């Protein structure tokens, strides 16, 4: 039967706005649900949210904290997105981030002879390379044997975290009791752009990089192939696209981006590798990718939101003693609603779309 799908003619601007409706609804729903939980706990939700808002955008310190938190998750979010656009689920971002961070730190404290800018570039490049390689290890079994990339990616994440943990606890441990690597050379440090906060030039790089990914996906043949493969593999094959090559490329690029995120976190914020430094930037990347509607520009805003939640959540913890877990809860509910897009989509469809057969 020929099915003709008849859409209501909405002008394109309105339709673009329509796209973010599920995201916006998810965020609002999560905030309402959390307010309810806070109320049950005997807290005043308005007060908590006010502290949270002030703690994320209220002054220069909190703004700096928000943007600092947002920086690595822009990278991991972009990474998630690129893989997802090719139809792959990269849940190994956290591991790729750790290895990228360590590689950058290593370059930072060993290749000290490099001049300032070149040293930074080399360190970021090393982070991208190692992150990409780690992703490549996760995707090859999928292409060769059909092993699911979620399993390989997840398992390799634990390997990566424990590997860096070993490296920083034994061979590359700086003197002292804490599992830190030596500091990177000054020539490898990304400059701070909003002193006294930790916000570094890495934030600017993240924005530029999001633009770069936007161009990659929408303007290049590589991005085009990635998108086609992600949507319709049969059509891709019929058009002569090598889908295995495209998937490997997209997944590896995804790992590179996550590795870059780790590298920039080390070069800009910590200036050395710290054992277990990431509070889950890799996992947040999944949230950023989905909340950003798989759009690089959307990822910036999604990362800002999650960064603000983290920064604001810290303030809440300091002022009211409420655990930071409240932020995790908000995030969890957001993801829950985003991951159930069918719910909203079908709801929206009922308003705007009707279908018939003939």
């Amino acid at each position: 039967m020929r099915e003709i799908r008849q859409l209501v003619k909405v002008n394109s601007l309105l339709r673009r706005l329509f796209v973010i409706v599920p995201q916006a609804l998810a965020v609002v729903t999560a905030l309402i649900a959390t307010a309810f939980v806070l109320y049950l706990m005997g807290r005043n939700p308005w007060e908590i949210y006010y502290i949270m808002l002030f703690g994320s955008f209220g002054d220069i310190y909190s703004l700096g904290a928000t943007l600092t938190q947002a920086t690595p998750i822009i990278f991991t979010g972009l990474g998630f997105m690129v893989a997802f656009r090719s139809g792959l689920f990269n849940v190994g971002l956290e591991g790729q981030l750790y290895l990228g961070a360590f590689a950058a730190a290593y370059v930072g404290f060993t290749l000290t002879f490099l001049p300032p800018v070149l040293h930074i570039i080399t360190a970021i490049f090393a982070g991208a390379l190692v992150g990409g390689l780690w992703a490549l290890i996760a995707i090859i079994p999928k292409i060769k044997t059909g092993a699911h990339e979620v399993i390989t990616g997840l398992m390799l994440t634990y390997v990566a975290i424990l590997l860096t943990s070993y490296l920083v606890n034994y061979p590359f441990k700086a003197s002292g009791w804490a599992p830190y690597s030596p500091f990177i050379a000054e020539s490898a440090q990304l400059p701070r752009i909003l002193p006294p906060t930790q916000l570094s030039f890495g934030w600017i790089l993240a924005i530029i990089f999001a633009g770069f990914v936007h161009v990659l996906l929408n303007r290049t043949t590589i991005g085009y192939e990635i998108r086609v493969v992600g949507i319709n593999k049969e059509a891709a094959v019929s058009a002569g696209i090598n889908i295995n090559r495209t998937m490997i490329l997209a997944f590896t690029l995804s790992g590179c981006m996550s590795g870059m995120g780790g590298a920039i976190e080390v070069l800009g914020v910590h200036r050395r590798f710290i054992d277990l430094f990431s509070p889950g930037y890799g996992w947040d990347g999944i949230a950023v990718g989905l909340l950003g509607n798989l759009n690089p520009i959307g990822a910036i805003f999604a990362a800002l939101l999650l960064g603000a939640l983290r920064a604001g959540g810290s303030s809440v913890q300091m002022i009211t003693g409420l655990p930071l877990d409240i932020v995790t809860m908000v995030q969890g509910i957001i993801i829950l609603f985003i991951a159930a897009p069918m719910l909203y989509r079908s709801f929206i469809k009922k308003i705007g779309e009707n279908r018939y057969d003939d």
Partner: protein
Amino acid sequence: MNLQVDEPKPTPDTSLVQPVVVMRGITKRFPGVIANDNIDLSIYKGEVLGLLGENGAGKTVLMSILAGIHKPDSGEIYIKGKKVVINNPATAIRHGIGMVHQHFMLIKELTVLENIILGYEPRSRGRLFVDFQSAREKVKQLQEKYKLYVNLDEILAKLPIGLQQRVEILKVLYRGADILILDEPTAVLTPEEVGNLFEIMKSFKQAGKAVIFITHKIREAIQICDRITVLRRGKVVGSLNVNVATPDALAEMMIGKRFISETIQRGITTKTPLLKISEVDVYNEKRVKVLSNVNLDVFSGEILGLAGVEGNGQTELVEVIIGLRKPDKGAVFVDGVNVTNMSISKRFELGFSYIPGDRHNALVQELSIMENILLGKHNNPPFSKRFFINKDILKAHSEMLVKEYNIRATNIYTLVKNLSGGNQQRIILARELSKNPQIILVVNPSRGLDIAATNFVHSKLIEMRNKGCAILLVSADLDEILNISDRIAFIYEGKIVTVRDSNVLKREEIGLLMSGIENEGNTTTREG
């Protein structure tokens, strides 16, 4: 058919009886479209009513309203004289209305019997258990009565489409339908199966049931129907008794202007084949031999039609030619060059164009018209240079093709999924034929298209042939093959039965050739 020529009213013995179904003033709107516009329709006991119209004429919507799938915006339905409101399929079934959909509503993993009784299982022992015994008996009786034989214990997925359709019909009968709606039932059948189906429809008629036959095939409508109602753009154009209905008149009613089937000039061909398939053997995933010793030559400047019932190796042959599948034996040559181990993209560079049978394999539904036109050309200049897509050139190219191929859409940024099947097919043709191909591999190009769109597709293919392309047309639609092919190859169980010039082919032979019987010696008669 027991037609009484002089009767003014439908069938003789029912003319005095009131109609079993009367639909009055049925209107159904969908956003932007009036699918049914104030339609009146009567259906009598013991007749086959043809509902004829092009795709999108509103036939299926009208019958879906009767079957309780859609609700009309306005209008009334009377069954056996009583006004009824049909809100859902269950109500329709209670009123004796059963619809056999074009897409079967069957569960592949269940047996035939389980499928038939699904939802209406007789119970035994305190309603806990399904009484398969009595169900089987009831179904057996129906099978005897209407000669609808099919093994009740077979898993549905193992049955050919023609038998699956029987299961669907049995299901409707089992639920007690005496008003049967068949939605394009012949679309999936072989000519032989169509004959069987028509016999079954006649037996329904004799049993006093009312049968509604939805179709867009004029010849079939005339062959089986007692009365034919033609719909166009959601309105009834008119109803004709079959004894006064001529193909010409019906075609005119359907498309609104006189439909001229053009006579086709034969193309001029060369001596050496541009595409040569040589001794190809293919075993499928289950290690069954699906192609054996296939030899085919396609010359530049001709359309070679590959006729055959679906599932006789056509899919595999196409996959071998385009490079989606490696043959177990044999080779494919393009202009004398062995391309058997070449990648698909390399073959495209040699001048292949491929129009797959399933539009979903050729289009990315979630991308725009422009981005679909880019598909397969995206690595070629001038559309891209060093990884960067040249949007300006692509835009101009897309706009030109949209105009040339008369693709109806708001603009080139419209997503393909929002377009009708005909427009989608036009996009594929626009893309593939604008590559300046040497060899065109085309599968079921007019499937699901209305007459106007089909004519367009055919004229484009003929135009490409006249430009010197070698075209291999694989189609399940025999009319299509007969209409535009210069030569016709028949494939049966993975073997080429024979290759004939289409102008010397007799219609009576075709059925035999399609079932693998080649009686005479006058095989391939290509004059150089």
